[in-house]
């Protein structure tokens, strides 16, 4: 959040009080960033442009950059090839389910580590931290077997449950809750409130920022996850968005309809992007919360 005005600390600070020169300099300073920013947009622009081309335009030689006439019907065609609406639904269910699960279990556990003392607490915390060292891919194969034993292959359970228990989430909530005022807790206890009630009615409402950040991270990570759903999902109507895009990619390559492939990708990517852009604030804050504390 931009609060006070920060003077440029380095690089391009050259005070020029002359009007025109100052303006030119301002533009020049903007330029590298603007260029880089536009580069970020290029793949998206191409995706939209290609999605509106005819098959001839897209495989033409030399390849075209812009369609002659926008073929909006490509978008209609694509929904016939891959069940995008169903995939959206699946992605929403999976991401939201996992997010709620992570928020609940992580805040409960973080609260326990931060505000309770019992034998073995610190050992358990170390255990939690060590799980952070385990990269996802390393456990994918055993997890697959485990999930298979539970009969959760190709189900929402299989997609959601393994991701609910996050050492990262516990760590983050614990750090945040360490600074939670004890007076509030003591006051509630003196008033006779039970521990669960204290957690739910005193602690949770006041952890909004941390929950929002953890929630944003978890939601986006689940939404974009590919390797795990690739293994778990076997039927087309359980696909999440990345899986649907993958099917579309394979289809597009085989059927030589790259324009449809781009249309599908655009449909799959843009709506979620619009939402995630609004979450940007929580990301920056979250990164600050975790990153700078080393």
């Amino acid at each position, binding site marked *: 959040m931009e609060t*006070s005005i920060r*003077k*440029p*600390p380095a*690089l*391009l600070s050259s005070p020029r009080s002359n009007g025109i020169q100052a303006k030119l300099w301002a533009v020049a*300073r*903007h330029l590298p*960033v603007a260029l*880089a920013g536009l580069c*970020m947009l290029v*793949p*998206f622009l191409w*995706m939209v442009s290609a999605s509106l081309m005819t098959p001839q335009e897209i495989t*033409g*030689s030399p*390849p075209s950059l812009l369609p002659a006439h926008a073929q909006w019907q490509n978008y209609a065609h694509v929904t016939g090839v891959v069940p995008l609406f169903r995939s959206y639904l699946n992605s929403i269910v999976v991401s939201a389910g996992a997010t709620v699960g992570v928020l609940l*279990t992580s805040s*409960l*556990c973080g*609260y*326990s580590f931060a505000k*309770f*003392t*019992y034998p073995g607490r610190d050992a358990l915390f170390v255990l939690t931290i*060590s799980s952070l*060292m*385990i990269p*996802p*891919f*390393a*456990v994918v*194969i055993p997890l*697959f*077997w*485990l999930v298979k034993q539970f009969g959760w292959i190709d189900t929402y359970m299989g997609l959601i449950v393994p991701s609910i*228990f996050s050492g990262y989430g516990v760590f983050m909530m614990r750090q945040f809750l360490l600074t939670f005022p004890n007076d509030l807790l003591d006051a509630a206890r003196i008033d006779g409130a039970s521990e*669960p009630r204290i*957690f739910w009615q005193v602690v949770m409402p006041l952890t909004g920022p941390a929950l929002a950040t953890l929630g944003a991270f978890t939601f986006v990570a689940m*939404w*974009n996850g*590919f*390797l795990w759903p690739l293994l778990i999902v076997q039927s087309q109507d359980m696909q999440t968005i*990345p899986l649907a*895009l*993958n099917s579309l*990619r394979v289809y597009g390559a085989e059927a030589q309809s*790259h324009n449809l492939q781009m249309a599908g*990708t655009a449909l799959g*990517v843009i709506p979620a*992007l619009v939402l995630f*852009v609004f979450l*940007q604030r929580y*990301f*920056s804050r979250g*990164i*600050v919360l*975790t*990153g*700078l504390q080393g």
Partner: protein
Amino acid sequence: MAVETIRAPVARRAPRIAASRMLWGYLFACPAILGIMVFSLGPILFAFWVSVHQWNLISPIPDMVFVGLRNYVDVATSDVFRAAFRNTVEFTVVGVGINTVLGLLLALLLNQRLRVRAFWRTLFFLPLVTPPLALGIMWTSLLDRNYGAINAVLSRLHLAPQPFLASPDQALASIIAIAVYQYVGMYVIIYLAGLQGIPQDYYDAAAVDGAGSWQSLRYITLPLLRPVFLFIVVTNTIGALQVFDVVFAATTGGAQTSGGGPANSTMVVVLDMYNTAFKFFEMGPATAMAVILFAITLLVTLAQLRLLRPRM
């Protein structure tokens, strides 16, 4: 005086309260701890165990055949894995290296503008929240030798169109470029957060002492960014070693079968592991690969933490 009288009655009841509170402490921690043990720690131990056996995932556990370290030997001598390992390391070193510098530059530039900064930052944020698979699809299309936009632009400039992902020489560089594109935003955002945490007074004091821009940068900004720098480099190295989605999107399906690009020039470890486990159903070698990469990741992380530890 008032404090002591309040405390006395509480102290007498303390043991009973403490016990019940301890119980709640355990209870609250239970779901997460159990979950982590079942879905994280348990599986990694299971992976270690499987890696010294031969197993096809389908037959029951007791039928697993113990083969000692043979899986590790097979993996270490496999051409595909060696290519995968080499590529993964190259990808990680070059990708993280480029982004570390590029991200810092962009963050420094962005740190100066006020009003429009949010807009530019949003642009850098976009690739971060797009599914990596989708980015792989978009870039594969952009880089296509026949109809990709990049070659279209090149041919209009009368330059030779490049094969990019179709060529053993350029494929890995292309993948690295995609990864740089995808993650530079994360570096920018984190560096920016770090830069904003540096008090303006330091710069003012330095200016009073006659320090120029470059000196400010070198003696104030960079040292104070060290914790942030460490965080970014460590997390992104770990992430880069696990690259999968982009390579999968760029090199599987259609005409190719196992992926990994022309002559395995973009094969990476996780992809090799995926193929070995879920195409060839050889769980032993696959988990051996997982263990090897896990060990490397741990070592590299510890080394980085050691070397880059902020001395403040």
